[in-house]
């Protein structure tokens, strides 16, 4: 399997200049953040931050037109740039106004899922490496999140963007989501974020009956547990890991001891074997009169474990605050050279276009972007941006707009 582990040297600054000049979709990004075809405060009062090769970081940039946006980024030629909140004043005027007068009003609601958080259950790759096997964690997480966002909160406009290495960012552009304050963001996060403790030292012990969110998520994850965890990743074949993350999730001390004893005597049993060992040992452990309750508890523990391993693990800091900055879509990941493309159906990190490859494709096809591997992502994003703009029209203007189309 090809990994997306970057070549030791990322793109050079002239590569970046080339990319901004010829490939970066400034127009679509501009309209996406502006939520409309005509320039509004959503864009002119929006903060952009640029990160440079030297480690310098320049916050509070803002732009008033597509031309200015493109020109300024091209001129500054940052390694990557990030998107922040919409303020009550244009951020670039920040030096001339009182700091206390600058207030963040709106921003897309964002979520960040990072592969790091799955490391206790990931055996195929470590650290920055990613392959199509472990990417399944992210794919499944995105599925769960998509359903939660649309069914529970009723959000319509959101897009997942590859972070360039081993994670994914979700941008939600619904007006209702954009307008949320920090308190609301934190509560939405708490609602969605089920697995809070990443150390896996304590069992999850979620309340019963499950909240409908958990019922639905479990139904969705359960069919994949056997494939992804027990077969492919097989994290508990490592006895030490099984003691640390599987045993601790059980409810009964005697059962834990029995399992520990059995697995110490028979080292190296696979995750699948261990998973069923638990049931076998449990049925020999309990007395008949308490059997029903005991097995019910065990079943609940196992359900918790499924959520513990597969439920989306979110990076909480990104979501909490309106003013938090997040890397813009279509940036180049400075270490891997991957384009942070929107995630389309069946996406895997190995399919992400690399800047070096794109440059070759461009020379091959006479600088026509249409024939590069970037095009399908550009198409996808453009279509998405149109959807955002359309849904953002209030009912009155929407009618006008529709009449215009006739």
């Amino acid at each position, binding site marked *: 399997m090809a990994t997306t582990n970057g070549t030791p040297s990322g793109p050079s600054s002239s590569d970046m200049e080339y990319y901004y000049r010829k490939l970066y979709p400034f127009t679509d990004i501009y309209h996406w953040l502006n939520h409309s075809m005509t320039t509004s405060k959503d864009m002119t009062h929006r903060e952009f931050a640029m990160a440079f090769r030297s480690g310098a970081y320049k916050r509070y940039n803002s732009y008033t037109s597509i031309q200015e946006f493109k020109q300024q980024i091209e001129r500054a030629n940052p390694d990557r740039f990030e998107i922040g909140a919409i303020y009550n004043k244009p951020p670039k005027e920040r030096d001339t106004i009182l700091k206390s007068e600058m207030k963040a009003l709106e921003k897309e609601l964002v979520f960040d899922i990072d592969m790091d958080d799955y490391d206790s259950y990931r055996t195929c790759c470590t650290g920055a490496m990613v392959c199509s096997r472990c990417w399944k964690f992210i794919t499944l997480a995105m599925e769960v999140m998509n359903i939660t966002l649309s*069914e*529970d*909160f*009723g*959000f319509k406009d959101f897009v997942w963007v590859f972070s360039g290495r081993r994670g994914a960012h979700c941008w939600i552009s619904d007006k*209702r989501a954009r307008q*949320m304050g920090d*308190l*609301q963001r*934190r*509560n*939405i*996060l*708490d*609602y969605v974020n089920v697995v809070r403790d990443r150390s896996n030292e304590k069992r999850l012990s979620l*309340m*019963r*009956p*499950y*909240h*409908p*969110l958990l*019922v639905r998520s479990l139904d969705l994850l359960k069919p994949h547990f056997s494939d992804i965890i027990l077969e492919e990743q097989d994290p508990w074949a490592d006895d030490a890991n099984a003691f640390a993350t599987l045993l601790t999730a059980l409810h009964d001390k005697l059962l834990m001891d029995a399992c520990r004893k059995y697995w110490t005597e028979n080292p190296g049993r696979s995750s699948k074997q261990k998973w069923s060992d638990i049931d076998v040992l449990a049925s020999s452990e309990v007395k008949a009169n308490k059997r029903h309750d005991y097995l019910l508890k065990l079943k609940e523990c196992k359900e918790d474990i499924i959520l513990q391993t597969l439920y989306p693990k979110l990076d909480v800091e990104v979501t909490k605050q309106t003013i938090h900055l997040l890397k813009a879509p279509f940036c180049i990941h400075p270490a891997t050279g991957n384009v942070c493309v929107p995630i389309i159906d069946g996406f895997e990190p190995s399919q992400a276009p690399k800047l070096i490859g794109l440059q070759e494709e461009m020379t091959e096809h006479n600088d026509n972007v249409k024939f590069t591997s970037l095009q399908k992502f550009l198409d996808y994003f453009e279509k998405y941006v149109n959807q955002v703009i359309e849904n953002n029209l209030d009912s009155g203007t929407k009618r006008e707009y529709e009449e215009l189309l006739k």
Partner: protein
Amino acid sequence: MFRQNKRRLAARRNNDLSFEDSNTSIKLENGITGFTSNGSLSLDEQKLYSNISKTKLNFYELPPQGEITLEEFETWAIDRLKILQEIQSSISRNKSVKEIATIIKPQLQKLLPSTLASFSNANDSFLEKKKDYYSHYILRLCFCRTKELRESFIRSETLLFKIRFNMLTAVDQTKFVQSLNLPLLQFISDEEKNQLSQQLYQTASPLLQFQLNLTDEQQRKAYFARERYIKLPFENVIELVGNRQVFINNGYAYLPQFQQLNLLASEFSNNISNSLIKTFQYMPRLNEDDRLLPILTHLSSGYTVTDFDQNNGQYGENSDNEINAESVWSPEIMKHYPLSVKHLMEGLKLNHHLRYNGRQQLSLFLKGIGLTADESLKFFAKAFTDGGHMTTEKFNKEYRYNFRHNYGLEGNRINYKPWDCRTILSKPRPGRGDYHGCPFRDFSSEKMTSELQKMNLTPAQIGSVLDSCNKGEYTTANTKVFEFTHDFNGNDPEINDQTLIAHPNLYFERSRQLEKKKIEIEEKIKGTVVN
């Protein structure tokens, strides 16, 4: 502006519901309706009063329109402030809502009573409501200035609202909720409930079990079958979203009626929050008045109200002469001293001297616990001369006057009161060789930690005290120490007073009371055993 109002008032004096005839009557106009009011004022006023009378609680939506005296203005505000401060300090001492409710109920009865009985005395109940209403609005004026003040005011007022709502009978609750006419309070049809019943029950079941103590599944099901559901945008009950305490579908939260207080409270705090900002914007117009501003500034300047020294004109009971020049050194008495006094006593013992501020703080404290003038002189004379650095002659020449003065026996003959925490905090900070001041403010965190360790506090307790110190909540820190060192959990029903200790003498008195009570109980137990 106010002069104009006065003239208008004079014209109206006999035809409205004003309860005041005093010449110092002032007109309290709030910025929300601004100064657009005209001749129809008395109508507004009547409308307001009839509105307040209808229900036992309210959202304080219409600004007060009547007249009150300056004195009422101040005392009503202070009474309410006492309750809010108690709530505030209870919150920062991590009390649960239930605990806070038990703590403040007796104080509510005393300071902001609301007659829960029927309208046996309609006039009384009306006056109570008027006080509640006006004091709320006065404090809005005090606490609208900065973000911090606004936030803490909203937090305390909302909690007060919740506590009072829970004190109402079910009938009154319903009546109140209906009076609000909230657009969000839409109940779903039985049909919709049936469709979602599985999800709704899954969400509600743990709540019924743990909040309403319905341990039996059948009970829970029966309760659920009767319960009505409110459907509203999830943003309105966002706190319940974070806890997953509501079912959410397509942007709507489904709120069981037994949880509606959450919704009311969030509406309530939003209302106040908006009004506070408006009030703040109108504040400059009030600047023309030179009578209210000093009171408002005074009230909002972190002023801790304590009525300890007002209530006990006679400090401490010293019936059998327990407190005298010798006994104040004894461990039996010393153990009741707050940290600041212990520190002063240590300084005195070490140096056989205290500088002016230290002398004042200590001698007035001792006076407060019942040390007589003669005994006080005896005490200080001995303490100052013991080291051999000072002759009795020198003491009499240089210090005797000072101590007698404190007892009102010299000079202007003023009977000085013991310093409360606010006075202590307002004095110059102690320098090298000074022992006065407030340890919670003046000690380094290392020194504070070692002092607290000496009192056998656990590391977690020490952390919590230091936390309050860092936040500048010195009286809260002191109260925490009191609670950690006394076998007493803060809701002892017999202490129906403020639990926040904002006076060193209060610390002493309360500590001794608790001890006495304990001894009584022990003796009773002994008695029964003997019998």
